[in-house]
């Protein structure tokens, strides 16, 4: 997928001015955030499970080559065709070839962030294949020509009114006078339209929440059941999954499943968790005749030897973005690439380069809420700081900012001089602002005073007053 990470500030500004988007985002705290808190409260072991989940992933990543080989061996034994793709382009080629070999005219897709990452749809469409996203949120985004703005709720930026308008614009074969004022009516219409696609599809493409080394299974987790219809009704099922999705055993998956839905939506478990192993068996009356798995690297293996290995624990629950006050303010599109929110601010610079995505790790207050809720205990703020350091090394931040920072640091390292300068600055500002107690505007402080008053200093520094007190002068 093309990135718009470099225009982050403009994207954010536009998002803040988008009243429709702001209405859509307003429900986050009372929805997903409150639901997670309730689910966590119902399971006293939740915090212990986070440690266990982290350990499972750490162990797997430390033996990733071996578990991938074991996965491949067991999947192949069950009749899967396993493909390896080092890059996004290679993954697209492999999938396109599978579709062509199958004579595919229509491809249905379950929700897959990896397919967004590799920009799959455009290639398939260019080859004359109709591609239909079947996760309702993905479908809403696809018919608008947009990208997902959240990894588990792709259309969280849309309001119900927008959906109704899109359906009326697009589904012209349906009667104009139909009523679409309720979400259930909109869902019903999408169900009807997409049901035809499921039944007619030649190839069904899904992602994978996990690959299980023990059995060679791929696992998807959904609430709609769209992934199951995608993979059960098409002749060919293609799974596209990145290397870090593998876990050793079904016991390991079970443990992580206890964290996933609770962190994501606050459900005890998502409605459907499906383990798929090989193609349909000779005696099976349904299921895909062929089953392919495309294992994608796309830069991840290079993260293993760095501090960023930890981010490969991510299970894509979306809790970090649900709890992020920056995401809550600007939504997902402003981040400019596939993965928004805190996880995107760490993953995106790792995958597309820190210089083209420097704003992402910088646009955080390090409030730490993401790390607090991450089921895999990924130290997201720490990793964002690592990106900032790399960016700073490479000459990131504006020239003015760098000069200001260096000047301040130079002074702060010289306490005697610093305290003299502080005294003078504070005396001046104090004299100017003391009467009102705050400034409405101030040279060089425009970023601050555009939106809020700047409190005035009290007029003398603490060090100055302390020295006087020590010398016996009254305060």
């Amino acid at each position, binding site marked *: 997928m093309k990135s718009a990470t470099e225009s982050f500030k403009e994207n954010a500004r536009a998002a803040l001015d988008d009243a429709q988007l702001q209405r859509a985002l307003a429900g986050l705290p009372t929805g997903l955030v409150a639901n997670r808190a309730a689910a966590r409260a119902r399971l006293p072991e939740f915090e212990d499970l986070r440690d266990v989940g982290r350990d499972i992933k750490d162990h797997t990543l430390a033996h990733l080559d071996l578990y991938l080989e074991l996965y491949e061996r067991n999947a192949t034994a069950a009749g899967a065709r396993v493909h390896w793709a080092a890059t996004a382009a290679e993954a697209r080629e492999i999938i396109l070839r599978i579709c062509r070999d199958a004579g595919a005219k229509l491809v249905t897709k379950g929700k897959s962030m990896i397919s967004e990452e590799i920009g799959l749809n455009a290639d398939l469409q260019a080859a004359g294949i109709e591609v239909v996203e079947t996760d309702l949120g993905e479908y809403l985004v696809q018919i608008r020509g947009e990208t997902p703005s959240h990894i588990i709720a792709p259309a969280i930026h849309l309001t119900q009114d927008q959906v109704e308008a899109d359906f009326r614009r697009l589904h012209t074969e349906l009667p104009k006078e139909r009523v679409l004022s309720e979400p259930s009516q909109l869902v019903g219409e999408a169900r009807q339209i997409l049901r035809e696609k499921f039944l007619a599809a030649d190839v069904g493409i899904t992602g994978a929440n996990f690959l299980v080394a023990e059995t060679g299974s791929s696992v998807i987790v959904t609430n709609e059941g769209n992934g199951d219809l995608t993979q059960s009704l098409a002749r060919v099922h293609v799974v596209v999954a990145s290397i870090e999705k593998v876990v050793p055993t079904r016991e390991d998956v079970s443990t992580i499943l206890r964290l996933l839905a609770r962190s994501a939506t606050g459900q005890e478990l998502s409605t459907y968790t499906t383990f798929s192993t090989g193609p349909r068996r000779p005696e099976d009356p349904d299921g895909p005749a062929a089953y392919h798995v495309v294992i994608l690297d796309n830069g991840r293996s290079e993260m293993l030897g760095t501090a960023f290995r930890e981010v490969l624990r991510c299970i894509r629950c979306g809790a970090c973005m649900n709890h992020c006050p920056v995401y809550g303010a600007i939504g997902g599109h402003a981040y400019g690439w596939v993965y928004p929110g805190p996880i995107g601010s760490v993953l995106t610079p790792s995958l597309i380069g820190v210089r083209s995505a420097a704003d992402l790790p910088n646009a955080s207050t390090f409030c*730490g809420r993401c790390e607090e809720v991450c089921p895999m205990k990924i130290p997201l703020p720490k990793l964002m700081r690592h990106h900032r350091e790399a960016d700073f090394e490479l000459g990131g931040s504006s020239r003015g900012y760098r000069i200001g920072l260096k000047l301040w640091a130079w002074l*702060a390292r010289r306490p005697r001089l610093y305290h003299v300068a502080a005294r003078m600055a504070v005396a001046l500002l104090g004299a100017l602002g003391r009467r009102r107690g705050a400034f409405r505007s101030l040279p060089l402080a425009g970023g601050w005073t555009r939106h809020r008053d700047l409190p005035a200093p009290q007029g003398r520094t*603490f*060090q100055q007053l302390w020295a006087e007190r020590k010398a016996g002068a009254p305060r």
Partner: protein
Amino acid sequence: MTGPLPSKPRVGLFVTCLVDLMRPSVGFAAVKLLEQAGCSVEVPAVQTCCGQPAYNSGDRADAAALARQTIAAFAGCDYVVAPSGSCAGMLKLHYPGLLAGDAEWSGKAKELAERVHELVSFLVDVRGMETVDAEFKGRATYHDSCSGLRELGIKGQPRRLLGSVKNLELIEMADAEVCCGFGGTFSVKYPDISNAMVEKKAANAAAAKPDLLLAGDLGCLMNMAGKLRREGRAVQVRHVVEVLAGELSDLPIAGSK
């Protein structure tokens, strides 16, 4: 720490650059509380800033230099106490990592970390303070600053002491634990996003209808006070230690409405 604690511990006050520059009254309130808690207070003159602006901007070299300066400044104290969760967190949790590769200083950083505390949690958890001798007539609400809350676990301590302030009614606002949007250099680099965050915070604070909004970090307080004042909302904003020390003679932050 080895050996018995001295009966009157020597506490080095890490003033923090914002308190030093903007609101020295917070520093004096801190000194008063520490003395009430049986400590003797020292204020090393060679301290400046904990180094977070550099550290969070990716400038490790300058941050490390300031870390070394701070460690040296507080070498002789039994405790190092700061009226800020953010700066205390920097000293306690980030200096050791920052200086991990420095043979001469990494041990000193770890040793310092053991002695560092945020002020209110120090009073309650280390000095066993249960009540304060102070009074405020009105409703107060407390904003949990992020670093104090999530890095140092400061949540109950300020509320406990506020509960002992005569005539003070402590109320909770919605989303007290959500960031106010200050974030140090964040507020300067991303002013529009910062503003969206502090707008929500100001709205939540105002909705609780307090007379007083409190927190333990001056950065957050200046941000919230500046927004509340710009919006013309009649909520006074103060550092929590001013109330706990009963030092309310100075104007509230950003003046009064």
